[in-house]
């Protein structure tokens, strides 16, 4: 029940050509747990473990797959808060509960072994450890199924949040800057996608003549799409629609980064079921085919990424995706790039040239009609900004749009292909879906 040794599943090079399994792998189901702001520390049916099991069961039920048919489990086993989580991200040193909650597993961490045991998935033969985040996990699953490593694979992405100040502990509470942080933290950079993008974003505004507040229509539309996503945090907690005025008056975090440029940490879990296209065709839902996946981990030249690097990296990621899928910008109907901080989506939008958007065009595009009902339904998922820090809305929405089951979010334009990602400009992954296998 382990990964094959040195399994080379990544597509992280330039010039790899069309993906060899294009259209031969499909997403056959998905499942979302409820999305809570935090675990209440009392309800054992709302733990991260319980929610992960629930999400898996929903994905399996949706596809019509039994536990015995699952032969692959890919679960992200790292804590979303990382090393800066501190006491707010771990249950310890508080006493644990009765099994299966007698360790951090099930409370703040989930791994494949724990899930396999709890769910009785006795035929699992592929359950890698050290799994990356969802942006790469979907590619790992697609490649594993395509390669025949497994044929029916659950992909689980848990995102936990306990009471306390998110990422305000651990190394962020330290007086010392160790390891790579010796080059950043003394001056105030505690790390994260916000810092990665804010300097290039500031350079972007000066280079192309925009201003930070030009993001307002995009952020407000993300919240609007989020309210059209029933399982998301905003919709399920009756969060009022954000207005332009509220956005413009919101406090700064890393000026000019505003509060509403940031996503909301949540306690939730999402699961997807990947299967061979052949098997998926016999399952309950119309298959959504995988046309390509790619990953990237670009190395910055120095301490801080600049705009030139960000534009080069995103251009390369776009080229890899289009090449591997055998498609071009005009072929992409649904575009769900990552938005975990608002001032990065423009880099992706312009690199992939979705709806003809070129470098420097994004803010004007945001000012146009990007509603799901309109001609340019950008980020129809609502992303993290509209649904919470699940990092999965982009994938679920893409599947639903291609199935034609996105409900109030269903776009009016053609919906036969979709691009989705959880990625920073420097590292992460993309996946291309198709309503048809070719």
């Amino acid at each position, binding site marked *: 029940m382990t990964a094959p040794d040195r399994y080379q599943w990544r597509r992280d090079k330039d010039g790899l050509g069309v993906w060899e399994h294009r259209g031969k792998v499909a997403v056959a189901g998905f499942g979302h747990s409820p999305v809570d702001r935090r675990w209440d520390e009392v309800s054992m049916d709302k733990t991260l473990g319980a929610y992960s099991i629930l999400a898996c069961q929903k994905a399996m039920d949706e596809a019509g797959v039994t536990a015995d048919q699952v032969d692959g489990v890919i679960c992200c086993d790292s804590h979303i808060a990382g090393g800066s989580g501190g006491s707010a991200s771990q249950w310890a040193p508080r006493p644990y509960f009765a099994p299966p909650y007698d360790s951090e597993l099930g409370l703040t961490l989930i791994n494949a072994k724990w899930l396999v045991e709890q769910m009785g998935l006795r035929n699992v033969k592929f359950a890698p450890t050290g799994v990356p985040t969802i942006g790469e996990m979907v590619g790992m699953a697609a490649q594993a199924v395509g390669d025949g490593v497994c044929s029916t694979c659950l992909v689980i992405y848990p995102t936990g949040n306990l009471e306390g100040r998110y990422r305000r502990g651990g190394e962020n509470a*330290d007086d010392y800057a160790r390891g790579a942080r010796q080059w950043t*933290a*003394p001056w105030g950079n505690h790390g994260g996608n916000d810092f990665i993008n804010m300097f290039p974003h500031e350079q972007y505004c000066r280079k192309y003549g925009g201003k930070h507040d030009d993001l307002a229509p995009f952020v407000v539309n993300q919240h609007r799409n989020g309210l059209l996503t029933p399982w998301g945090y905003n919709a399920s907690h009756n969060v009022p629609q954000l207005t332009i005025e509220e956005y413009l008056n919101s406090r700064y975090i890393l000026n000019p980064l505003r509060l509403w440029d940031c996503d909301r940490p949540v306690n939730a879990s999402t699961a997807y079921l990947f299967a061979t296209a052949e098997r998926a065709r016999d399952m309950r839902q119309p298959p959504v085919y995988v046309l390509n996946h790619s990953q990237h981990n670009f190395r910055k030249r120095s*301490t801080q990424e600049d705009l030139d690097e960000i534009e080069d990296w995103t251009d390369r990621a776009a080229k890899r995706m289009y090449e591997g899928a055998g498609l071009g910008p005009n072929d992409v109907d649904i575009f769900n790039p990552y938005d975990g901080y608002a001032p990065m989506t423009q880099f992706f939008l312009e690199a992939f040239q979705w709806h003809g958007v070129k470098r420097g065009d994004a803010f004007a595009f945001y000012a146009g009609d990007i509603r799901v009902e309109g001609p340019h339904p950008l980020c129809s998922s609502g992303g993290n900004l509209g649904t919470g820090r699940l990092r999965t809305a982009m994938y679920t929405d893409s599947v639903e749009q291609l199935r034609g089951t996105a409900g109030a979010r269903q776009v009016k334009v053609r919906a036969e292909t979709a691009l989705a990602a959880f990625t920073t400009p420097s590292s992460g992954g993309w996946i291309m879906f198709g309503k048809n296998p070719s």
Partner: protein
Amino acid sequence: MPKLIPVADALSKPFWDAVNQKRLILQHCAACDRLQYPPQQACQVCNSANGLAWKEVEGRGHIASYIVIENGRLNRRMPDQPYNLAMVTLDADPRVNFYSNLPGTPPYKVPVGAAVEVTFEEVAPDQLIHEWRVVA
């Protein structure tokens, strides 16, 4: 409240030792004739470790970009908020950049494009860090 205190490791010790002597040294790859910062085990371009040597550089640069930290996550820096966080490029090789709080420059009043020069600031007894100050 002082800044976080860098903890040198085997790779970075020569750099911090030099900073504590108020000198700025960077890795230089002889094969590529390029400077490199932060230090790495091998040249980022040619991947050679043998060609890397420390080289003292002139502490002159320019401000390329900046933000203002108003609500950061570092406990030790919270009393300083709001404070500038600038990206400074090195004149000797603009591909090399550094962070700076731009001591002497009020928050929000950052002259992007302005020339800066290195200065050294004590963050703990016997520990300096490199900072950058706008050239008058």
